């Protein structure tokens, strides 16, 4: 068998070239697919690229016979679609090629009409005509490989091993060859059920082959996705190809903007191991926490009857790992009943409010070894020779755990039942999927079932662990809608954790950008050991306090710059003592919500120094970030390549600096570029946002963009200064929480409708807040405290409105916190009043949880009205008012011992309780 695989299986012979008639054509802005004699032909539409055209053949290798399938072909030439049918005596294969974004999308359906499993390896093979020989082979992983004289390949989907868990990095589902200007790439959709894919480039033949392996059951019709792409390599060929994937099917990365918990920082055990503090969490914008192993035995997250008492593999129990909201749980003594009662009570009290993400058997991939052997033997995954299968003292810290497979097995069934039970019974708001990674093959009995993702190799039929994890995430979403999944890994999930530190430069370079390519537009965060000060500056005892301040200030900026570069939220361990790290929250979360982009198609004048840069958003909703890490301010021209940023929509973008009060920026359209002069101060994050996008704009056009902002209203004005007259459409950004109105010379127009435009025209986008019906100053000036700093705040709510009562407490928490921190003098406290005549009164904050929509406004008498529908919405709206009040009562959490910053260091430099200065980067 082994010999057969070496000699025949991987031989590149084309036994079944599919024949097509002429004149079929599918066109995207970057590439055109058409028939050419007996072949498919793709033609580059990017001028000046490194390749002109390529013949594309399809073939299907039969893994059992070791031969390519042969049969009849039939093609259909339809409008914007090419259909290729290929059939034999016991199978039928139909592939439909259409345009999807900038790429050609091939949807293949393979039906097995035989009575046995078919082991197939369909592939696309491109013979490429280059104008310049390609230099780089991208195998899907993060590092580019130089093309030499010999064939270069990637077989399978297993990359570098990740830590001790034996899982592997997965390649992005694509591969290609790139020259200096452009490249050709193949791919399939991210998170497709693919357990094996390969890519080979033969420089002698100038041939790129890309395949997937599948096992198709008798009677099964399997859908297989393909992409054919052409990407400019001016700003990174792989980056541009990844961006084309984002543009083509964004739904695989999209997370509901209204999903709870996911759009914030992590609490990093502050609410799980300690008593939760809602005011502290508001200040840290921590919306969720990692609720670590709230059960006794790996594989039994429900703590089922009959499984509680068992012989542990590695006693003693380490009690410190068992806490609910700071409560230590004596696991040796506690009975199952008492434990379940405690867990239920704590979860119902805090779980939803603090976003306790229930840690669950890693990602359903590990189970206590005795339990797995006794109850779930079919799920044991221990046959992959390239991974470890048993870990001692692993997730629960007191057992031996064995790798299990959570799809189509008895374990999967039990795990799904447990998930449903936990959501229903203890109101779990979401699940933490640790080690949500793949790269480990399961060869167990479930592979005999008709499960997704089955592939084959010399050992037989297998499924990659990643397929099971992805399907478990899908299960949670479908079984209990609204339940979120936090993943620590590259796979599916509503929020993705990058469990590393920015300061571990080598690891960062090794894992990025591949890891982030997988995360894409999803919310995500970096979660590790913070500054690792003892490691990064091991000889800190040689430093003075000033040198420490300089070093920590630079490290703080380093974290901020990397946060914007990769779009990763952080946790308090790199925020304490560094006010700027907290001050950037609003802008950062706005960018994160817009969606991180893989490619930053921006040219900068040499005089500009910005080693850190990033782009977010899409179409007319674009943000740019630049970070000058040098010591001097730099100034120069930025040229934005609109085609690449907008997916060749033809729109040209107008930018303005992203500042809290407003900004003015002169833009020039030159050809397809937007140009503006940028000033990048030393070690300051600089952001730009689109003021509008204009279609059909002439090659030369000068515009002046201005923004003016308050919490209740934002106005973006673009004045056309120089331009020939033309007809174009204007699009404006969507602003979350605002209703937009677009005006041209004062007249309301519909975005995207053709308009006659000329020099002197004024485009105005006015955004009115859906929530705030008053300017910020009114909130800041409200009489919460007397001149002497004594709290005199009055909060009114209806005595029967329990939701308002809870929200009212937030003001009490707010002022008590400030008094505790000596920002305000002690003594006064918030007065809660319920008398009907005080509702809406002057100087009174009135809370109402019965409103139809969230609203913050002034009452006729001069009171502050905060209204919202229900408990959660009202509390959220109160939080947004408190966020504004922070400006009047500024307080930033000072340096304190935490992960990566030992108390010994702070004590040595006398920095405990102190903060660095606040720079207010965006004011």
């Amino acid at each position, binding site marked *: 068998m082994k010999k057969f695989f070496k000699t025949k299986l991987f031989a590149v012979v084309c036994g079944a070239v599919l024949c097509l008639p002429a004149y079929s054509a599918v066109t995207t802005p970057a590439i055109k697919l058409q028939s050419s004699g007996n072949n498919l032909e793709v033609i580059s539409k990017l001028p000046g690229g490194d390749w002109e055209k390529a013949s594309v053949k399809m073939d299907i290798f039969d893994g059992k016979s070791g031969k390519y399938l042969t049969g009849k072909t039939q093609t259909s030439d339809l409008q914007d679609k090419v259909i290729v049918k290929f059939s034999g005596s016991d199978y039928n294969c139909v592939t439909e090629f259409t345009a999807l974004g900038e790429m050609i999308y091939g949807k293949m359906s393979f039906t097995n009409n035989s009575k046995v499993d078919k082991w197939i390896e369909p592939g696309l093979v491109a013979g490429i005509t280059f104008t310049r020989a390609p230099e780089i082979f991208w195998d899907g992983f993060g590092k580019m490989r130089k093309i030499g004289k010999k064939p270069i390949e990637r077989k399978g989907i297993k990359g570098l*091993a990740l830590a001790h868990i034996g899982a592997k990095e997965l390649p992005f589902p694509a591969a290609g060859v790139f020259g200096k200007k452009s490249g050709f790439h193949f791919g399939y959709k991210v998170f497709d059920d693919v357990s094996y894919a390969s890519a080979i480039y033969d420089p002698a033949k100038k041939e790129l082959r890309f395949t997937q392996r599948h096992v198709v059951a008798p009677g099964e019709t399997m859908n297989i996705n393909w992409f054919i792409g052409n990407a400019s390599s001016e700003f990174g060929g792989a980056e541009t190809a990844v961006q084309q994937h984002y543009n083509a099917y964004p739904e695989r990365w999209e997370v509901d903007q209204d999903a709870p918990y996911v759009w914030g920082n992590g609490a990093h055990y502050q609410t799980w191991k300690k008593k939760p503090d809602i005011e502290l969490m508001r200040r840290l914008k921590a919306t969720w926490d990692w609720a670590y192993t709230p059960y006794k035995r790996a594989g039994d997250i429900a703590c089922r009857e009959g499984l509680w008492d068992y012989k542990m593999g590695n006693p003693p129990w380490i009690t410190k790992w068992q806490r609910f909201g700071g409560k230590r749980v004596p696991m040796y003594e506690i009975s199952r009943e008492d434990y379940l009662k405690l867990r239920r009570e704590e979860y119902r009290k805090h779980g939803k409010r603090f976003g306790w993400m229930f840690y669950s058997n890693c990602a359903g991939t590990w189970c206590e070894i005795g339990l797995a052997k006794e109850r779930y033997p079919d799920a044991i995954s221990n046959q992959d020779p390239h991974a470890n299968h048993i870990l*001692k003292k692993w997730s629960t810290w007191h057992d031996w755990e064995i790798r299990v497979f959570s799809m189509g097995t008895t374990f999967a069934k039990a795990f799904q039942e447990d998930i449903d039970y936990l959501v229903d019974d203890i109101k779990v708001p979401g699940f933490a999927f640790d080690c949500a990674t793949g790269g480990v093959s399961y060869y167990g009995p479930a592979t005999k079932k008709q499960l997704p993702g089955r592939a084959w190799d010399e050992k037989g039929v297998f499924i990659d662990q990643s397929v099971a994890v992805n399907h478990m995430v899908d299960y949670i979403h479908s079984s209990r809608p609204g339940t979120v999944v936090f993943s620590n890994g590259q796979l599916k999930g509503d929020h993705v954790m990058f469990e590393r530190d920015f*300061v*571990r*430069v*080598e*690891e960062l370079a090794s894992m990025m950008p591949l890891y982030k390519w997988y995360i894409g537009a999803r919310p995500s965060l970096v979660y590790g050991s913070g500054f*690792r*000060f*003892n*490691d*990064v*500056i*091991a*000889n*800190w*005892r*040689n430093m003075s306090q000033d040198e420490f301040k300089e*070093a920590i200030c*630079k*490290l703080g*900026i*380093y974290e901020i*710059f990397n946060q914007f570069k990769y779009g990763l939220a952080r946790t308090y361990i790199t925020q304490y003592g560094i006010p700027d790290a907290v001050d950037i929250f609003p802008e950062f979360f706005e960018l994160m919500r817009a969606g991180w982009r893989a490619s930053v198609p921006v040219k900068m004048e040499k005089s500009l120094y910005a*080693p850190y840069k990033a782009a977010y958003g899409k179409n007319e909703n674009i943000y740019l970030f630049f970070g000058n*890490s*040098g*010591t001097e301010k730099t100034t120069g021209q930025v040229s934005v390549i609109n085609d690449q940023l907008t997916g060749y929509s033809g729109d040209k973008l107008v930018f303005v600096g992203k500042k809290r009060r407003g900004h003015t920026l002169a833009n020039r359209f030159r050809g397809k570029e937007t140009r503006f002069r940028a000033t990048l101060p030393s*070690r300051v994050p600089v952001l730009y946002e689109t003021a509008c996008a204009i279609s059909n704009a002439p090659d030369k056009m000068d515009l002046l963009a201005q923004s003016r902002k308050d919490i209740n209203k934002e106005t973006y004005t673009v004045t056309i200064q120089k331009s020939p007259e033309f007809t174009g459409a204007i699009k404006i950004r969507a602003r979350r929480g605002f209703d937009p109105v677009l005006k041209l010379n004062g007249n309301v127009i519909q975005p995207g409708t053709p308009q006659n435009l000329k020099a002197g025209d004024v485009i105005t986008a006015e955004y009115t807040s859906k929530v705030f019906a008053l300017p910020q100053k009114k909130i800041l000036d409200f009489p919460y405290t007397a001149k002497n700093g004594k709290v005199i705040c009055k909060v009114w709510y209806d005595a029967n409105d329990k939701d308002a009562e809870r929200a009212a407490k937030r003001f009490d928490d707010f002022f008590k916190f400030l008094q505790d921190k000596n920002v305000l003098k002690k003594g006064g406290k918030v007065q809660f009043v319920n008398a009907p005549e005080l509702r809406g009164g002057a100087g009174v904050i009135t809370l109402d949880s019965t409103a139809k929509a969230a609203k913050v406004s002034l009452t006729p008498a001069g009171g502050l009205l905060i209204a919202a529908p229900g408990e959660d919405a009202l509390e959220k709206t109160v939080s947004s008012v408190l966020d504004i009040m922070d400006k009047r009562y500024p307080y930033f959490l000072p340096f304190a011992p935490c992960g990566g910053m*030992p108390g*010994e*260091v702070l004590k040595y430099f006398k920095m405990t309780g102190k903060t660095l200065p606040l720079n207010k980067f965006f004011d």
Partner: protein
Amino acid sequence: MKKLFAFVFAAALTGLYAAGTECRISENIIDKVAVYTLDNGVLQVKCIPEASGLISGIYSIPEKREMIAPVRYKVIVDDLMPRRFSVKGHSGVKELAGGVKMEFFNDYRVRKKESSAEKCVLELYSRSYYARDISVVKKITVKRGEALLKVSIDFTAHSTLDKAFLFWLNAIGSMGKERDVVLIPVDGNIKTRSGKGLSEINGKRGIFVDDLPDIHNIYLAPTAPWMARYSKGRAGIQTVVFRKGGDDVVNKGYFSTWKHAQSPLHTIEMYFDKRQLKKGDVWNLEYDILYFAGLRSLRAVAGNYGIDREGNTLLIASAAPVAPGVLKLQSGNGAAEVKLPELTPGKVFKVDLEKLMGKVPSTLTAVLPGDVTCEIPEQISL
């Protein structure tokens, strides 16, 4: 007691080990990093102070043999991060502390360079040892004509440490192109050490030979304070021996040998028990790295002697010149004495045990000149 039946085998290399060259230290800036070379005419030892005082090269001049794989490093000079020494793949010998990631280094400064005809000493100093409130003096010494280098580590605690301090040595030599074979004197009856569960070797006691082809991380309790390595294709044994602190590591510490994936490197690690240092405490450790040029394996280290056994032949070499003396052997069958000739690095003295003592059991004890005693055990494997 039987007496003196032996013969001397002078390795072909012996003549190359003439100790005529004077010792010297040189400094070179290589890729922005200061690299010091200590040369005693037999060995050229490279040290990078900035990288935890890493021993980055041990070169046998007579054999033209490098015994550490090249350290591929760069210095990361970043606008925002402190200057960082960064390696791609780990190699060389360095001391570490519990919890320190391999990619981070302690930055030593050169405090003294001494060089004379007879020896050279490089003295390094750091105010803290991997951020702990411990100052450390690291001294590397080579003496003329010796195939060994001495490293002394002197810790001084400046305050009482909050946590017990775990010291360990990471030694990644490379004796050939293929992955080295590693030798460890172990007691397989010991199941845990310093809280660490040890690997199972079925209660065997002897010289564990790690020639396992696959990925294995092995943790074992030592019976002697040394670990050694060799390449199958070529004679010559590189040995790391703790002198000061040797008893501690044998009685309370554990040794580790591990390899990663397809890497040809084979790491050895020597872990001490956690130590609670109080303000003013001083802790001295000393280890030697010896090279026994003519040996193909190793059963024991005694002083500067390395002893191996091939069937009924005992092989004795020395990493430093030694005067003639008497070797006493003791086994279950009785005792014997052998006159040892003068030994210099590269020379191997062979004893035919059967002729000397009759049928000799697998384990015997030797007393070498200078009254150093050692056990010569059998080899074991998993």
